[in-house]
């Protein structure tokens, strides 16, 4: 048995001559000790949830039909007729929510530990790209169900895009593939959701992780870390095991959510009846509320400005630091931004 295994190893070595050194180096990269705290593992958690999304999403495409006449029925079939269809769909639904939570918390963590500062500005911007991808994922995915709320959500979003200055008209038509939400729209959303966005996010993630590896993670030292003699632990097995523990805990949460709150299905989309209460998913509450209290153009521009502010924050932060050194203004601005975010979200949730 052992001999056979050795033979196989030797064969692999000759057919795929990658130096063993490489694997050892990649897997045993030293990781700072402070990473044992779970909130420093949020990036890894998000990556794990992304993996779940890829697997369950792939399975769902086996039955989903991206055509207005059949989309809703195919989702209905997945939910109620295909064996374990409800499990796959509910996992996909719930891990999408957890995915977005993990990404947002990851952004917060990076922000408040100042991990976006030189030389990591580019990686912060790539991270922002991933965040936008994730939000678009959520939006397009929800629209695919083709129930009343998803249909009208798509309509509202497309009409909003129309108000982007200069290119709005073009953008909205590009998004819908026509003047109203129709079969072209569904096909587009489908292609975005299962092909273009996965491609984009995979590329961005690869660069994101490569840059982390090249630059190393930010070194932090906490009060209670001092007593440890070693400041670093190997990625494998220490950090890998920790990530697996977190992943298993998430799996536990998902199991609970799937069993007790399985994904349901509203009324099928009806282009002639707008339902009384249209609300987007919770992660758009902030924008939705902002759009409600401002005029359309201002609302769209403001959202764009906020996004730009987020992307270019490392540079803005540097200017602030230069003018007011050592006053932690960035931290306070961050707290204000998060407070606004929370207030708007809760406000929208309560109304």
């Amino acid at each position: 048995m052992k001999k056979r295994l050795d033979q196989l190893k030797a064969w692999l070595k000759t057919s795929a001559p990658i130096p063993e050194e490489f694997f050892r180096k990649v897997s045993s990269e030293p990781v700072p000790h402070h990473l044992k705290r779970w909130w420093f593992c949020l990036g890894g958690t998000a990556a794990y949830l992304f993996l779940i999304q890829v697997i369950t999403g792939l399975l769902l495409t086996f039955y989903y039909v991206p055509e207005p006449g059949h989309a809703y029925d195919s989702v209905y079939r997945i939910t109620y007729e295909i064996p374990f269809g409800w499990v796959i769909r509910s996992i996909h639904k719930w891990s999408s929510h957890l995915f977005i939570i993990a990404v947002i918390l990851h952004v917060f963590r990076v922000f408040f530990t100042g991990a976006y500062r030189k030389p990591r500005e580019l990686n912060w911007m790539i991270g922002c790209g991933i965040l936008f991808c994730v939000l678009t994922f959520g939006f397009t995915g929800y629209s695919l169900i083709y129930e009343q709320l998803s249909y009208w959500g798509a309509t509202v979003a497309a009409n909003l895009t129309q108000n982007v200055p200069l290119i709005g008209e073009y953008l909205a038509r590009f998004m819908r593939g026509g003047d109203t939400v129709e079969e072209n729209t569904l096909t587009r959303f489908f292609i975005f959701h299962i092909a273009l966005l996965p491609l984009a996010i995979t590329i961005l993630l690869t660069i994101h992780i490569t840059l982390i590896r090249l630059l190393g993670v930010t070194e932090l030292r906490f009060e209670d870390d001092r007593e440890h003699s070693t400041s670093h632990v190997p990625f494998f097995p220490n950090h890998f095991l920790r990530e697996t523990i977190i992943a298993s805990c998430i799996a536990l949460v998902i199991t609970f959510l799937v069993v007790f709150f399985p994904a349901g299905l509203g009324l099928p989309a009806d282009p002639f009846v707008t339902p009384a209460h249209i609300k987007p998913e919770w992660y758009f509450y902030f924008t939705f509320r902002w759009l409600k209290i401002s005029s359309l153009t201002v609302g769209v521009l403001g959202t764009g400005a906020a996004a730009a502010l987020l992307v270019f924050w490392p540079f803005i932060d540097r200017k602030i630091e230069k003018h007011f050194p050592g006053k932690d203004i960035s931290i306070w601005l961050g707290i204000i931004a998060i407070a606004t975010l929370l207030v708007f979200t809760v406000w929208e949730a309560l109304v």
Partner: protein
Amino acid sequence: MNLPMEELAINSRRRFLSTCLGFLGAFLAGGFLYPVFSFLQPPARKKNGEIVKIPKADVPLGGMQRFHIRGIPATVINSQGTYAAFSLVCSHLGCLVTWDGAKDQFICPCHGAKFASDGHVISGPPPKGLEQLKVDVKEDEIWIS
């Protein structure tokens, strides 16, 4: 800085835990793969008890009429005054056979198989005859189920 004995204890403990983890992981993977495999096996769409009604006038002597039953293309033929209905799916590799009224036989375009008017294989590679459907002749209609 561990003592040799301690190191030994840690090593055996580690090996034990890793083995446990391996077994549990295998079970978990199985627990996930089972739903995935059943997910990929959709339940059959039940269409039993479907009855197709065809007017006698549509099937003249030596003629045929095509129709679909339970999602399968089928035909009813009038061979010397008696009606018989068959699935058109060739029992060899699933091509659709055609009815040759003049020769009173079915011919498969794929591999040249020939079937008699009662569905039996005359020549060619098919392992068995065409699937026969139940025919009920009413006053001026043929009921096929």
